[in-house]
């Protein structure tokens, strides 16, 4: 599990644009590139495309490091979001649809995928709040209806659009959209309830 504090320090050093910036950026790359490449590959499905996305993502991270919010606590998530969005845009701009070839069977078992693809354990650098939030998230995902959970996992991990979800799940677009919205709303309510109970 990547150390958010360390990643944040490297991002800030990268943003400084001084003689230590390249070294900090190189360390940042060494630490995070494997994850970003994995996330991109999962979405685009092709190694060479994923490598292009990795290149573009780190180019953006280099140029946008000075805009990273120093108060933000999730720099890894910020970097992953850059790679995910880039991968999603890349797929949207490609003619060939990847539906039917993109997913592994484990995603049809969202419960198994949740524990395989995500790390719900405690990271050494995590605050007590983060540890609790992580546990609530896992618990609340487990309480969602199966179709909601599967829709959310497929959208998040594979970067599927509503339309691609509808094709993959063989359901009308409206149905899938409502699963996604309801799933996220239920997830939020559940986690907020946990927060309220904890407070």
């Amino acid at each position, binding site marked *: 599990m990547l150390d958010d504090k360390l990643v944040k320090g490297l991002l800030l050093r990268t943003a400084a644009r001084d*003689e230590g910036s390249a070294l900090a950026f190189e360390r940042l790359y060494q630490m995070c*590139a494997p994850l970003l490449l994995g996330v991109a590959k999962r979405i685009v499905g092709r190694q060479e495309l994923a490598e292009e996305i*990795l290149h573009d993502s780190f180019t953006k991270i280099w140029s946008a490091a000075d805009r990273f919010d120093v108060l933000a606590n999730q720099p890894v998530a910020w970097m992953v979001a850059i790679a995910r969005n880039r991968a*999603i845009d890349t797929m949207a701009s490609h003619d060939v649809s990847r539906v039917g070839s993109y997913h592994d069977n484990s995603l049809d078992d969202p419960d198994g995928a949740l524990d395989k693809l*995500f790390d719900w354990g405690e990271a050494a650098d995590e605050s007590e709040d983060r540890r609790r939030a992580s546990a609530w998230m896992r618990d609340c995902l487990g309480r969602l209806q199966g179709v909601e959970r599967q829709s959310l996992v497929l959208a*998040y991990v594979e970067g599927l659009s509503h339309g691609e979800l509808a094709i993959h799940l063989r359901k009308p677009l409206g149905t899938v959209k409502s699963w996604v919205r309801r799933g*996220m709303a239920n997830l939020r309510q559940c*986690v907020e309830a946990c927060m309220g109970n904890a407070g």
Partner: protein
Amino acid sequence: MKFAGHRLLDALCAEYLLGTLRGGARRRFEAARKDEPLVDLRLRHWEAIGTPRYSKMMEIQPRPQLWQRLERDLDLSQYRQRWYQRTGFWKAWAWVATAAFLLVLAVSVRTLPIATSVPPEIAQLSGANGSTQITARRSKDGGTLVLQANRPILAGPNQSYELWVIPGRGVAPISLAVLGNLDATITLPRDAIAHVHAGATLAISTEPAGGSPTGLPTGTIIAAGQVAS
């Protein structure tokens, strides 16, 4: 379009984090996040609810060439410390320089005296059974005698060795030094220097601690030899 009071703001935040907010809709939402503090605040709330962390299983090690290309494209070399700017480099340099200086010094100390002041050998002193061999060397000015034994030979606690010179047949031995061991450098008594000449005999006797009480050898002669030059 203002997103801050939008009835679907929560749904938009959720879809943005999930990745299902696409294209122009996503870009407008990102712009709103910058421009409208309430949108940013709401999105932070959603992020705080939880952004799951990917497991190690997701990771794929990139090829080394990818970093090289990135480094070249971003021209990162201008943001690197030059070798001469690195504190580590100068620290290492200082250590190496110091070590090299000490090495040169040590070599000089060891080699210079040997090269310049190793006195020439003037005699080999041998024991009766041949097991004791002592080389005697004399400095060029004649005032210093260096004894080197073939093995450590130390006097006992109540014993001393005494070095004598016998200038010629029938001439009484003259004491040159009282010794604790037979690896020794001796400054010859001024009036004895002339007696250590070719043909004279050097001899070592065992004596009571502190040397011969009589001024002549009283104990066993353990080694003797003739001065050659």
